[in-house]
Structure formats: C-alpha cells, structure tokens
C-alpha cells in the first residue's frame, strides 16, 4: 500500500515538475508583457517535432537534434512570436491578443498535422527508463532524472533572476516597467529575454515529457490547460507559485487516477480551478493585487 502510494507520488512529482516548467514560462510572459498565451500548450508540442525533423531529415545525432530543436524553438516561439504577434497586437488590447494566440495555437497544431504527421510519433528518450527501487517503490529512472533535471532548471532560473544583473533588471521590468525605464533598464530587451526564456523552458519541457507519451500534434491541448491552471493555482505572479502549482497538479492527477476515478481524471483541472477561485483567488503563494473592479 505504502509503496504504491510512494510510487504514485514520485511519478506525479516527475510529471508535475515538467508542468511547472511550462507554467513558469507562462507566468513570466504574463508578468513581462501582459500576454496570456493560449498557444502555450502548442509551444510544448512543437519542439519535439523540431527534434524529430533534426533526427530524420538532417540525420543529426540525438544531442545535435536536441540542440537544433532548442535553438529553433527559441527563434520561432521566442523571438518571432514576440516580434510578429505580440508586439503588433498588444496595443489593440488584451482580448485581441488572446484571440491571436488562440489562432496561433491552431496554426501550429494544423501545421504539424499537415506537414509532419497526424499520427503519434515515437520520441527518443533522453534517459533510460530502467526501473529502480526506492524504499520499496518501483519508479523508473526516467521519472527520477526528469524530476531532478526540471528542479535543477528551476533552481538555475531562480538564481539567474535573483543573482545576476540581467535577472534583476528583468524582475524590475516585470514589476514596474515605467520605473525600470527611469532606472536605465533596457525594458524592451528584458521583455524579449522573457519570451526567449519561455520558449527555452517550453522546449526543455517538451524534450522531457514527449518520451513519456508520443509526439502528437494534439498534445498541446491538455498541456496548455494544465500549465495555465498550475500558474493560477500557485499564484500568477510568482515563480515559486507556478512550481508549487505544477507539482501539485502532477501529484493530484496521479492520485486521482489511481485512487478515485480514471474516467474523470481529466476533469481535475476544472475542479481545482473553481476551488482555488472560491477559496484563494490570488493563488496559494500569490498576493492579492487588489479587488476586482
């Protein structure tokens, strides 16, 4: 009993930590540019296919293909997304931008479907999936390494944001762009960095999570939803919040599927979302931004 619980908990933490990467990117972009990116799920789906392109069309070795996928993601989902979609549309208002990101999601999804394949594609695993034994629980090595790696990325990111000059400038920009500008921060550049980091986080999450499933054009639908909910549950304006939200969803999802209902496990995000709105609308670690007007 206990060992099964531990097993469920650990593999939940492993997927949860990957969700957290996506949620953190989502929250960063939201802070820096008031952009609610409804294509975030597709941002996680696409990089896996870029890697497959590198492997199958350019005959790159796995590490080369991963680097290729990462670079292309940063270019397309970071720089191009900001320059071609967010920058021209943001002045028209938040709702217009939301609709544009929805259209972008459709564009990415359909492009992958038409230009690559509508079928699920096997994706090479970065880590071996040998089972290992931890206190009686049988967990795959892949899960453990996924967890370690994504937590490592979060720690690095936090260090970067808190300890480096660029990171602190990015934080200042997110909190108050007008003041940051006066203090001599290159606000535009900082916002661009945020988009690049979001793209990189999405790509890394993609590389870690896709081996668990298959690479499929429709993967983004659930992933995006889970990332939004993780960010909301944890607290929209906090990296720690998105991390906690992601881990929580990963674990709860596994627990619900194992112990409550497998048929309705996909309804968990909705239930969590409504609960958090009713009980703690600012998120578990969030601070209230003032009342709704």
């Amino acid at each position, binding site marked *: 009993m206990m060992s099964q619980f531990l097993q469920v908990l650990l593999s939940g933490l492993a997927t949860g930590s990957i969700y957290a990467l996506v949620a953190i990117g989502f929250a960063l972009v939201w802070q820096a540019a008031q952009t*609610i990116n*409804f294509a975030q799920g597709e941002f996680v789906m696409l990089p896996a296919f870029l890697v497959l392109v590198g492997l199958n069309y350019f005959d790159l070795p796995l590490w080369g293909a991963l680097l290729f996928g990462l670079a292309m993601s940063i270019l397309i989902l970071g720089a191009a997304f900001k320059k071609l*979609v967010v920058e*021209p*549309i943001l002045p*028209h*208002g*938040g*709702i*217009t931008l*939301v*609709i*544009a990101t*929805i*259209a*972008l*999601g*459709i*564009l990415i999804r*359909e*492009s992958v*479907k*038409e230009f690559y394949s509508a079928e699920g594609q096997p994706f090479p695993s970065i880590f071996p999936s040998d089972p290992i034994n931890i206190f009686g629980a049988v967990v795959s090595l892949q899960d453990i390494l996924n967890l370690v790696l994504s937590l490592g990325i979060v720690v690095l990111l936090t260090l970067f944001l808190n300890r480096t000059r660029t990171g602190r400038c990015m934080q200042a920009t997110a909190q108050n762009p007008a003041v940051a500008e006066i203090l001599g921060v290159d606000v535009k550049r900082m916002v661009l960095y945020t988009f690049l980091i979001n793209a990189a986080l999405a790509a890394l999450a993609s590389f870690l999570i896709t081996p668990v499933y298959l690479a499929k054009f429709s993967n983004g*639908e*659930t992933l995006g*939803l889970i990332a*939004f*909910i993780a960010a*909301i549950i944890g607290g*929209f304006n906090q990296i720690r919040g998105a991390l906690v939200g992601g881990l929580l969803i990963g674990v709860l999802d596994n627990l619900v599927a194992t112990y409550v209902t497998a*048929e*309705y496990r*996909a*309804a968990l*995000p*909705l239930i969590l*979302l*409504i609960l958090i*709105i*009713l009980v703690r*609308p600012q998120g578990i670690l969030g601070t209230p*931004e*003032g*009342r*709704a*007007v």
Partner: protein
Amino acid sequence: MAAWLRRILIVALITLAIAAPLGQGNYIIYVMTSWLVFSVAAMGLNLTLGYAGQISLAQASFMAIGAYTTALLTLAGWHWLAAMPLGVLACFVVGFGLGYPALRVKGHFLAFVTLAFNTLVFLVLRNEEWLTGGTYGLVGIPRPNLGLFSTMRSLPFYYFTLTVTIIAALAMWGIVRSPWGRAFRALRENPIRAESLGVDTRRITLLAFAIGSMYGGLAGALIASLVQFIEPGSFGLAHSLRILLMVAVGGAGYFFGPFLGAGVVILLPEILRFTEGYYLIIYAVLVIVMLIFVPTGMIGMWGRIRDRFIARPVARADLQQGAQLK
C-alpha cells in the same frame, strides 16, 4: 449608417436569405442551414465577447448541452418546441454556475474556466453511455413537425431555421438597444466610470455570459435536428475556438459581425478546397494578419474603407484621449 439605409439593407438581406436556397441542391441548402446555426451560436458569443468583453471558450460545449437535451427529449417523444427551451434553460443555469465563480476575480478567468469546462462536457458525453450513447452518440433525432409544415426535407428545415434565427436576432437586438446594451457599451469604454455610476459590472457581465450561452444552447438544439446524429467529437474544444474566431473575424461588438464571421468560416473550406488540408493553416494566418491590421474584424474593415473614401466629419483626435483611467 443612416437608419433608413440600414432598414433597406436588412430587408434586402432577409429577402436574399429567403430566395437563395430556391432551386439549389441539398448540399448547398445544408451549408446555408449550418451557416444560420453557427450564426446563432456566434451571436451569443458576441454578446459575451464583443459587448461584455469576456472570453468564453466553451460555446461548443453549450451547443452540446442544447443538442443533447433536445435530442434526448425529442427521441423520447417530446416536440422540438418543448424540448428546445429546456436545453436553452439548462445552458443559462450552467453558464450562470460557471460564470459566478469565474467573474469574481479580475483577469481572464472565465477563459480558463470555460476552457477546462470543454473537457468536462466531453468526458460526461463520452463516459455516461447510459444517457448519451457514449462515443456512438445519438442517432435518428427527429426534426420538428409543425402540422402543415413538415421539416423533414431540407428546404422546409432551412426556412424553419431561418425563422428561429430571425427571432433570436430580434431578441438580441432588443438586448443591445435596451439600457443593458448601453451599460455594455459603457463597460467596454470605461469600466471604472461605469461602476462609479452604479453599473454592477460583475452582475451584468455574468448575465451577458449566461444569455450568450443560451444562444449556444439554441444553436445546439437546431444542429441536433439538422444533422440528426450527434456525438461528443462534434462539440470539442476545436469547435469552441472555431466559433470564437467567427466572432473575431466578423467583428466583435458589431451586431452583424457574427453572421459575416460564420459565413466566412463555413464558406472558406469550400473556397479553399483546392488547398486540400491546408485551409485551417491559411485561415489561422489570415486571422492573425487581420488582428494585426484591423483588430475590429471585417465590419471594422468596411468602416476603414468608408472613412478613407467617403468624407465624413472628423472628430478631433487630440480630444479623444483622457478616457483611459489608470
């Protein structure tokens, strides 16, 4: 637009809608009927999005609620005219229940709640086989029989749908020109000022969403009878997004925007048939490009052309700022 010109235009459009399907094949009539159905769904979403400024990503789910309620009841022997109102009412209740928590918080929470709601509806439709037939769906849904006027053939059903659409549009016209409509416009232009003048922004937004969802239910009741076969896959997230884009493309916040947007979304696959599978890709690109250059949609585009080529009194731009309150 001058009032008389608008009236002539409306009469002309209705005449066209009556005359167009005459002598056409069943397929064309089917396409036209589904244009009407999606116009109804988009009209409802336009109230939520265009007038009340809230994003709902679950209009297809409300169509599902309307469609399944109507289908189940008509299969059990009810008349469509009795079954449809129940489906529509169910949508109001569900919309209210979803919107109530979501609209308590500032930000686009309704978008997230409705996004997640799509999944729940899909799961219920798929898992509760005893009620919904699961993945096999419901087959053989009857079309309404109106005494002398049977709608089993496609042309009479088209006219039936047209009548329902016109009634729904008139009701919507009543809403947007009532004091509510004025409150919506005020809300869109300056929510803080509206609130300070006693407009209960939260409540009116919630009601707009619930009423908009009712139109989704009505569209669902119509599509159940049109297609006569429904299954969970016809009401997925992709369809909700499709209706949202109809509203955006036509022109959110304009009364006739949804009709135009639905027309484009229904007809585009036909026009772009030569591109085979790529039409959604082309469509998505067109939408993004349109949002960059004319965020107000096709009706806004017409306004630009008119301003450009037909001289009209110009408001002084330097006096238009100031509405923004921080």
